[in-house]
């Protein structure tokens, strides 16, 4: 495949068009003595068609950054954009619509509605919008996740790995501008985790999907094109074409 052989642009190269970005994003919980700065003036961008990992120790603000960029949480100050849309200016209803139509989600666990079948879960955002799913695209996604014979099963009848594959398929099915994955392999054994990660990377390379993943696992981060390192609510470093060992070293330094 030609895509896999194309070298990734170096981190220092001027960034391509951005799927989402944050400018001076600051999130403060509490006030006075109990004040916690979860995000402290973060400015960053997530390029289209690339797989970005956000890493950092517990409490570094990586999940908060993701929640804010994904429109699940709001900022104390600063601005986040999905495409050219400034999220801070959107109301509750518009945010919901944004999440439904332009963003995909994969959570660590409890990703699926237990009363719906695998297929119904996959088409949920499209159904919620009251649209007909794009059958060709849907077939392609389903084939890619390898769940064609499990589509009628309820989540409780699927293994953990299969459930996460359904979750990824759901995120892909609506053709969102960007997918946010929050520790998507956190609950899986290493083999099932590797499957999911490879699948996500393929989605980026073959379908041109944009994915942002929060993880604390260097092996998972190694599947991404670029890693952002957060500590104490600030971006402290980034790394292009990461490998597990390099990421681990970097994390050790951050831990010091």
């Amino acid at each position, binding site marked *: 495949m030609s895509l896999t052989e194309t070298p990734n642009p170096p981190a220092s190269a001027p960034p391509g068009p951005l799927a989402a970005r944050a400018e001076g994003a600051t999130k403060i919980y509490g006030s006075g003595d109990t004040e916690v700065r979860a995000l402290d003036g973060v400015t960053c961008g997530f390029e289209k068609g690339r797989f970005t990992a956000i890493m950092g120790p517990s409490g570094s603000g990586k999940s908060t950054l993701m929640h804010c960029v994904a429109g699940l949480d709001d900022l104390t100050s600063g601005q986040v954009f999905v495409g050219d849309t400034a999220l801070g200016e959107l109301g509750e209803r518009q945010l*919901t619509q944004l999440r439904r139509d332009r963003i995909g989600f994969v959570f660590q666990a409890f990703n699926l509605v237990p009363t719906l079948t695998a297929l119904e879960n996959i088409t949920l955002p499209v159904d*919620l919008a009251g649209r007909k799913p794009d059958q060709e695209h849907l077939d392609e996604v389903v084939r890619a996740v390898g769940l064609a014979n499990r589509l009628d099963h309820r989540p409780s009848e699927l293994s953990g790995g299969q459930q996460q594959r359904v979750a990824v398929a759901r995120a892909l099915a609506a053709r969102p501008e960007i997918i946010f994955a929050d520790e998507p392999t956190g609950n899986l054994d290493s083999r099932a985790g590797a499957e999911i990660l490879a699948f996500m990377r393929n989605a980026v390379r073959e379908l041109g999907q944009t994915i942002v993943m929060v993880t604390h696992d260097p092996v998972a981060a190694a599947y991404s094109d670029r890693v952002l390192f957060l500590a104490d609510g600030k971006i402290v470093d980034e790394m292009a074409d990461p490998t597990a060992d390099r990421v681990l070293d970097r994390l050790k330094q951050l831990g010091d």
Partner: protein
Amino acid sequence: MLTVVLRGIRSHVLRLAATVVAIVLAVGFMVGTQLLGATLRVSFDEAFADINQSLDAVVRASREMASPFGGQRMRIDAATLEQVRAVPGVAAAAGEVRSFVRVVDDEGRPIGNPDSGPPTFGLNWIDDPRLNAWTLVEGDAPHASDTVVVDLRTAEDAGVGPGDTLVVDLPTGAESFTVSGVARFGELDNFAGADAVLFEDTVAQQALGEPDRYDWIAVAGDAGIDETELVRRLAPTLPPGTEAVTGATFTEETAGPFREFIVQFTAFIGAFGLIALFVGGFIIYNTFAVLVGQRTRELALLRVVGASRSQVLGSVLAEALLVGVVAAVAGVAAGFGLAAGLRELLAAFGFALPPRAFVIEPWSLAWPALLAVGVTVLSALVPARRAAAVAPVAAFGQAAVDRSSTSRLRLVLGLVLVAVSVERSLAGLRSEGETAFWNVGGALICAFLATAVLGPLVMGPLATVLGAPLRRLTGVTGHLATENARRNPARTSITASALTIGVGLVVVIAIAADSASASITNATEATFDADLVVRPDSFLGLSPQAADDLEALEEVATAAGFRFAPTEVLGTQTTLVGIDPSRAQEVVDFGVVDGSLDDLGSNSVAVSAREAERFGLSVGDLVPMAFVATGDTVLQVTAIFEGNPLLQRSARFVVDHDTFDANHPPSARRDAQIALLLAEDTSPVLARAAVDEVLTAYPGAESQDLGEVTAGQAATVDQAVAFLYALLFLAVLIALIGVVNTLLLAVYERTRELGLLRAVGTSRRQVRAMVIQESVVIAVVGTLVGVAIGMTFGRLLFELLARESRAVTTFSLPTTQLLATVVLAALAGVLAAVYPARRAARLDVLDAIATE
């Protein structure tokens, strides 16, 4: 362990709210009605005892004839009074006279209670204060023949006082009197709810009863003489056919029916509290089942750290006990509030009760509370046993799946209940009288229990069928709502079952009432050929002159008066009707099967076919009968009539007016109904106007056409039905609280799922719609099953009623009402979901996702 229980309650106090509300409502209702019932009962007992304080004995005719207006006895000779006074030990004696009268205002309109309320009595004034319960508050006793004393309330209603003129309609005709005074009856402003006019002795005898006769003689004994001893001394001196009873016996006879009525009425209303509590049990069961389910890990953890099974069982039961006790105590308090409110309400409707503190009978407060606690603990027993069965290992794994819905035991138990219900229904159809009703009632309870047991098995398919249109209409939210309604079939179906009970009972009543109304309409239309009916507003009846005046109108072809009295045939109580044979046959189709009504004259009687069969009578037979004024007589049967069921029931033995009048006091020689046949080629409107013009001379008389007659009777049925609905509303309300409860518990339980749905783009509106649609599915399932059960048992009840009471003959299905019930249920479902839906929509997405 107690600490665990208390902390547990505190942590999910909101989740227990519905349970508490259900218990408080049911207990409050039961306690409130018990409290008011006991207070009414004791108040009346006290009032009667107070009024008859110095009454030691009563002398009266021995023979009593029962009638709908209380027992009627022959009057006794006034001369007996002197004989009684001569008996040693008698300190005072006075004759009493009582009859119905009507007070009329300046415009000729009757004053007093409306026609269904307590009547207005005419009494004689007794001078001896030892035997007079009345106390003058103003003016003097009625010592002249043209003066009267009225009770305080009548004086206020009529706006009269001493010196004013008052028109009183008497059995002998309307007369004008001067008010000499205003009086109170013991502690009361009126005659225990009724109005009263008191006349001078001789006037009372002539106008109300019969000259030189008294209804009974009241006797006060000398100080120190025992009531029984007084009666023993009186007895031998009395003429034949006369008896003496103690004051206590007399008071008991007067107060007894009142008390009996109050006791039965209280018990009847209390039964609806039991229904409510039964429904409440379903909610309690659901709440604890969900709490235990949600706390599986916590319970398992308790097991891990060393709690025994019985300790876990105990902790859940202790929680139920505590909740039950707290709610029951609050319910008792609410009962006091309800009783106070009801007392105000009664007062506002004119039924002022004697001022008195509530009568608190500990047991009548304790049993609803204890029952409620019992129901709570019992309802929590199954969930508690499930909690005890939680394995310690569950602390580390996934919560167990609820498989109770598919158990074979459930199916077997449900089918057994269905079988018992069918068997009891058939037994009900085979048995007679009260037994039949008990059998069918038992069958109904079994049917409700079967619904609750089998519900989980059919809930899924039912929800799918009902959800199909929702899915088509609203797409994915309808789909999610339907799936949610069936995901916990046990819980959903229990919730729906609670509604099934309320709706089922409503439908049974609706069908019985509709059939009764239809039967009345059919019977009235079949009985009367009359164009108009004239009726009085009270037991006083109409003067016979009214019928003659009406027949004298050229617009009126026939005016037939009907008089009613109790009578005895071969020693058995039955009803006597007095008619004018030629006029009555014009307006009523008697359906004579043997003999002829034209032969009805002095000393002859016509008998309904049913009574003829009962007493074995045929035309030409001599029948021994007894009448109120004249006692034993023998009449000859001249006709037997078939009529229709309504006629059969109201007219059993029929005599002509002369025979009727000859055997009854003047107060009874009055028409309870006049049926009119209009002259041909007369405009009904003009004829009616002419009739009403004549009736202005007869206060309280009102004309009705056939439509108004049936509408009036149907309105009586409607009133009774409205009352029953009001009582059933409690059970339906509790069932709806159950729906709110189930939805709220589901929202708590599905917090993460809701968070997920919101995260992937479900709008708040869609979340709300989803919860509301789930609620509608539950409500409609419960209602449809209730309608089905109600229709089955409504039909059964009709069969029983048709057999027991000949008044119910036509089965009628109130289709519109049944459809309205289902639509209302759907609306109630929407209403019940408002709060849970808002909670679900307001969940913070991030918090919800983060929830464990």
